[in-house]
């Protein structure tokens, strides 16, 4: 009965609010679950777009057009503490800022509208601001992308790009996902709360909510040579991120926090701290198969707590049909005891060195051979983990990440 009533109200509210405005809808849930790379499942909070949907982490990316008048209809379908949406970086008025005691909070089975404009193209965040240390860690966050009217440009009079990729960095500490933490007390009559939080020692280091072998074929930087790839990045975690792009993609940092940099910075390495966003333009001049690394840095000790690896696939030339695309492909990946290296026709017959490098940089397998279409490599009893396969040929060097289970 209650569910039917909510559906009806949802339909009516969308119908009324959709006159003359861009409508987006989010549903806050505290009964989500997330499968981690190690096979364990934890409880999460999050934002969904459909009633009954398990909220994804991160939440759905909201894409607006510059100067849109936006109505964000937020439903809270979760018992316990209320939720809000903070529109991080959009500089909205106080009433729509999503801080509980300074704007409004949305209680179970209730909804509220966040109304605002998005005047600056760029990358932003949204997240719950109720006991934000816990609710953000629980998974209540997502990305906002504001595009100019001409969506081929980063911003009006900015840079033209041909493809784009969004990367959101975060971490998870499974201790924080116990009910004893998530289901905290909350007295709505108080403006200042006293909520215990655990020590933060994350075990999971996420890019777009995934880590380790979960990233393979799901999150990558992909584009073509002689084209521009716009990479939008945001850090919603509690550690810093150091992203290292391969030199071959010619990375240039062009914007931060929704504003163009006065002077673009040519650099392969970029650090992003909690709450920051950056835009980087990649301009590869050649095909390239390799990786970018994302280090997660402890803000108290300066130590690198973890490193994740992203595939970078620059295949073909922009505007040119190339039958020899994808010079290197590993099947299966993840692999167990054997992997096949498929190479493009132009590499067949070339003398090559095949090497497998572990996460510490040590070469654990090395072969010299003349390439055929499918080149089998016995992995023996190598420990499970993330490796990099290096293929040196007469035409050039290629690399690709290989997960061994």
């Amino acid at each position, binding site marked *: 009965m209650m569910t039917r009533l909510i559906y009806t109200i949802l339909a009516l509210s969308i119908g009324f609010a959709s006159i003359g405005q861009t409508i987006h809808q989010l549903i806050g849930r505290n009964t989500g679950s997330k499968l981690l790379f190690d096979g364990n499942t934890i409880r999460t909070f999050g934002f969904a777009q459909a009633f009954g949907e398990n909220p994804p982490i991160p939440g759905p990316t909201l894409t607006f057009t510059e100067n849109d008048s936006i109505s964000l209809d937020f439903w809270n379908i979760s018992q316990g503490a209320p939720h809000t949406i*903070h529109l*991080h*970086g959009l*500089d*909205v*008025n*106080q009433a729509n*800022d999503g*801080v509980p005691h*300074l704007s409004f909070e949305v209680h179970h089975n209730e909804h509220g509208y966040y109304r605002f404009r998005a005047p600056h193209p760029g990358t932003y965040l949204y997240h719950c601001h109720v*006991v*934000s*240390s*816990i609710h*953000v*860690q629980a998974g209540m966050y997502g990305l906002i992308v504001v595009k100019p009217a001409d969506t081929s440009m980063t911003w009006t009079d900015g840079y033209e790009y041909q493809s784009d990729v969004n990367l959101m960095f975060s971490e998870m500490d499974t201790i924080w996902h116990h009910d004893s933490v998530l289901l905290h007390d909350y007295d709505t009559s108080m403006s*200042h*709360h*006293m*909520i*215990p*939080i*655990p*020590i*933060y020692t994350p075990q999971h280091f996420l890019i777009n909510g995934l880590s380790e072998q979960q990233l393979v074929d799901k999150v990558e930087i992909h584009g073509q040579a002689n084209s521009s790839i716009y990479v939008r990045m945001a850090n919603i975690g*509690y*550690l*810093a991120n150091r992203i290292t792009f391969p030199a071959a993609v010619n990375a240039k940092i062009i914007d*931060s*926090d*929704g*504003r163009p*940099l*006065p*002077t673009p*910075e040519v650099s392969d390495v970029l*650090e992003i*701290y*909690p*709450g*920051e*966003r950056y835009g980087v333009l990649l301009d590869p001049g050649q095909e390239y198969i390799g990786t970018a690394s994302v280090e997660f840095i402890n*803000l*108290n*000790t*300066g*130590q690198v707590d973890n490193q994740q690896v992203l595939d970078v696939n620059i295949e073909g030339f922009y505007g040119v049909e190339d039958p020899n695309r994808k010079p290197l492909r590993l099947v299966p990946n993840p692999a167990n005891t054997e992997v096949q290296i498929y190479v493009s026709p132009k590499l067949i017959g070339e003398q090559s060195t095949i090497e497998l490098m572990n996460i510490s940089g040590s070469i654990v397998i090395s072969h010299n051979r003349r390439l055929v279409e499918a080149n089998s490599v016995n992995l023996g009893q190598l420990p499970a983990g993330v490796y990099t396969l290096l293929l040196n040929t007469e035409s050039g060097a290629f690399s690709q990440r290989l997960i061994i289970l």
Partner: protein
Amino acid sequence: MLRATIALIVLCTSFLSNAETVHHRLHLNAGVYTAVDTTTFPMASFNWTTTFEAQNARITLESGDSLSLTIVNNDSIKHGFKIKDKTSGEEIAPGDSIHLTVFFDQEDYATIYYDHLNNSSFRAAGLGGIIHVPSNPEGLFYWNIKDFQKNWASQLVSGESVNWMTYYPDYFTINGRSNPHINQDSMARVVGSVGETITIVIANTGSSVHSIHFHGYHAEITYSSLNSAHIGRSKDTFPIKSMETLILEMVPDKPGEYPVHDHNLSAVSAGGIYPNGMFLTMLIQ
């Protein structure tokens, strides 16, 4: 030509008349800090008097000033004193004092004075403050941000070494206070008006990196002691590393009460309690 020469002389005279030798005396005091949750732990500060206060004294100068500074060590152990990028550092015996004179020629400049001895132990115990040379004395606010691991406080204030690779702070302060008490500090809480130019000087005299997020407004970086390439960037989130100073300029475009807080959200706590850490609000009318 004559007119230009006269104008130049007038300008120089005007400049020189503002520059002066500014005399200050700092007292290095050891004491006991009472945190927002009434927890207490040992701490030390540079204060204007012999009475211990958690907030370190703030020194404001004009461009061209010479700072004539006497530092008195009221503690029972040896301490040090250094001005970042200005002096090489001197030791002060217990009960003794030192004197130094330092010239400040750069406008819109901020640096940190601190106790440099014992591998940052004394600074981490609280001994670090701000020196600021503004171009405009109006609309100024100061955030001296620090982090503390309570169970290390006794060791640090004694100058003992700790293993920084295991550092996990549990108290976070701005000008010696945590949320909700920071708002009671009129030099910390930004109160201003729409259209007014507001200048915020931030110094990280703690040991962790902090990432300060502004709700409601972007601000422009007008000075960065570590990254001059960042000057001119308009942002809403400002990472600040240990021993870094930033000067931000903000012109509010709308009224409202908006939070500013560390977006390392585990630092919005004190003794493991949210939201008693690095969090305050700005009030724009």
